[in-house]
């Protein structure tokens, strides 16, 4: 087991390295750089920026150098903990990400828990009672959940919450709590705001996971070990939960690796619509304005999350499944 984990850990390093290169290349893909879009902003506002000025700025920001030099500087900085300055926000990248990270994780975890709490029991129900009215109902609902574009759902939900309950819109706090220190009231306020984004983020995931769980379990239910357990005299519920669900969880677990970063990056659109203080909208604007150090840092972080997520799910899988563990 330890050897296995170690082996997987060692693989992380080259993976992250390659990802960092690709990340940097992706950011550099669009023509131009931050200054191009920055100057475009100035010019569309009516300021005239001379080419000489642009060249000078480019040199000042170190944007004129070849990509590999920029990459090298960036990597060296990152390794020493310096993620650089955001051009757009004019602040250190570490601070920017830091102030949004906690809420991003809170939101991701909340929606992840919501997804699991809802999709697991429904998936099990749907499989055990295959082709029952309940199964059809949940299948229908989950396909609807898959089909509704979540950005639209977010806007409708926001409008509904405002027009029906007069809820303050967008964000994760009411204005009066936004800067208040943490208190019980603030926590409650936070929770009252959390449900909309969590629900919107969860809905697509729930649908998907119900389908996965149902299919996995349907594969397991006819297996002989289920019959064995039944022949031992086990009750149906505890039997299903102990054996086939447990085995069906394995492929489920392997999705964790992509669920974690998926919730962070997949929530970009929803976060933009709902004005959530997460890294998603920041990444989007950073990419659009080619704020490369910020975008690079967030992307790198996402990639590392993915790699870690995959690692976690591999380890979990090994822990859950002795067949993997002992081979």
């Amino acid at each position, binding site marked *: 087991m330890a050897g296995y984990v170690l082996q997987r850990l060692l693989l992380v390093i080259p993976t992250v390295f390659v990802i960092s290169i690709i990340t940097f290349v992706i950011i550099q893909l669009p023509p131009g750089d931050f200054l191009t879009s920055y100057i475009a902003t100035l010019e569309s506002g009516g300021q005239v920026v001379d080419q000489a000025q642009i060249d000078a700025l480019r040199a000042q920001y170190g944007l004129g150098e070849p990509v590999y030099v920029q990459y090298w500087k960036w990597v060296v900085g990152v390794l020493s903990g310096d993620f650089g300055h955001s051009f757009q926000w004019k602040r250190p990248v570490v601070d920017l990400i830091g102030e949004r990270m906690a809420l991003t994780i809170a939101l991701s975890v909340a929606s992840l828990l919501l997804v699991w709490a809802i999709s697991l029991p429904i998936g099990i129900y749907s499989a055990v009672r295959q082709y029952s009215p309940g199964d059809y109902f949940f299948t229908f609902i989950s396909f609807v959940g898959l089909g509704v*574009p979540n950005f*639209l759902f977010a806007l409708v939900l926001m409008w509904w919450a405002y027009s029906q309950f007069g809820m303050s819109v967008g964000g994760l706090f009411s204005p009066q709590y936004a800067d208040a220190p943490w208190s019980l009231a603030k926590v409650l306020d936070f929770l009252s705001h959390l449900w909309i984004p969590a629900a919107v983020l969860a809905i697509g995931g729930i649908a998907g996971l119900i389908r996965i769980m149902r299919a996995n379990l349907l594969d397991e239910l006819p297996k002989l070990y289920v019959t064995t357990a039944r022949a031992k005299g086990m009750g149906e519920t505890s039997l299903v939960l102990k054996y086939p669900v447990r085995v069906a969880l394995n492929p489920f677990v392997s999705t964790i690796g992509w669920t974690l970063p998926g919730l962070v990056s997949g929530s970009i659109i929803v976060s933009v619509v709902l004005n959530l203080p997460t890294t998603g909208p920041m990444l989007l604007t950073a990419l659009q304005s080619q704020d490369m150090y910020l975008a690079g840092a967030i992307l790198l972080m996402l990639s590392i999350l993915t790699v870690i997520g995959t690692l976690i799910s591999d380890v979990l899988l090994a822990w859950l499944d002795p067949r993997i563990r002992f081979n």
Partner: protein
Amino acid sequence: MTTTSETGTPEAFQPADNGAGKAASYAAASEWRLMWYKFSRHRLAVICGIIVLLLYVVAAFVEFVAPYDPEAQNPASAYQAPTRIHFVDADGQFHLRPFVYGTSSQRNLDTFELEFVEDTSARHHLSLFVQGDDYRLWGLFPSNLHLFGVEDADARVYLLGADRQGRDLLSRIIHGTRLSMSIGLAGVVMSFFIGIVVGGVSGYFGGTIDIVTQRIIEFVRSMPTIPLWLGLAAALPSNWSVMQVYFAITVILSLIGWTGLAQVVRGRALALREEDFIMAARLCGTSRTRIIFKHMVPSFMSHIIAALTLAVPEMIIAETALSFLGLGLRYPAISWGVLLQEAQNLRSVALAPWLLAPGAMVVIAVLALNFLGDGLRDAADPYRR
């Protein structure tokens, strides 16, 4: 046979071969007939298959099916609510043929909204095959015949209401069907090709090749998609038309999207290569390519077909998301994603909720395709009924 005969499920009685009668035709049927046989018993899937077929028929004849030109604007009917279909007129008289009243609009000087009043003096009956806006079917055949509408050119019927320019939403949704139901297919096909080849090779050969492929898949999967879209979209030649760009993006999507299928295929192939008939083929000295394409691919065809129908709705959803990011289709193209993007604002949600109707179309298409896919998978899976 013996392996499955003990599982306590109906498979125990699946015949390998048998005598005469109906069962004989059942057993002797070709794989495709067999699939169709099983599929036709899945009633929901059949209904959904018909819906999908209908969607494609509509997509083929949008100009005829849509009552109006999807771009015909009308300042007097901006944000007009769906027209009420009447059977009973203002005098309380019943008419067998449904009809609508003309509407006139006036601007509310306080809120600047248009307010609509029904003019009950004249009835306009709905009829089939009416003459209306000119169009060219498939850009070739000029016509002005529309499936339905009102005869009187002055009265307009907005079954799903009108949008911000007073355009008929129903006509726009119908026109959107063509793009939404078709444009993603190329990308899907491509990602399938990659997925099958890579997954098949990985699963068939196993060993080092498999490990390397697995790492690659893991790596591709860990690429964040939205930045990739943004980056690649910005890097596309800028003189490309909206459609070209979108097509390119779907191809890019497919370059990321093949991993899921590859893993399914790999798993199947890994299992299959241990199976007797593959062993037998190998022992007979059949070439590897032939084994993969002649023996292994058909045996996971079911998954492929099902995954295909399931991937199309994914493309539809991806298209709406791309439209939101400004990377998908854009004006003047009409797709459900474009229509939803237009509805993505407070005015639509608060004042003209009927503009969210394209969302319902997405849901219907996704549902129909998914159930169809489920049905096909069940039908094509020799181990499941």
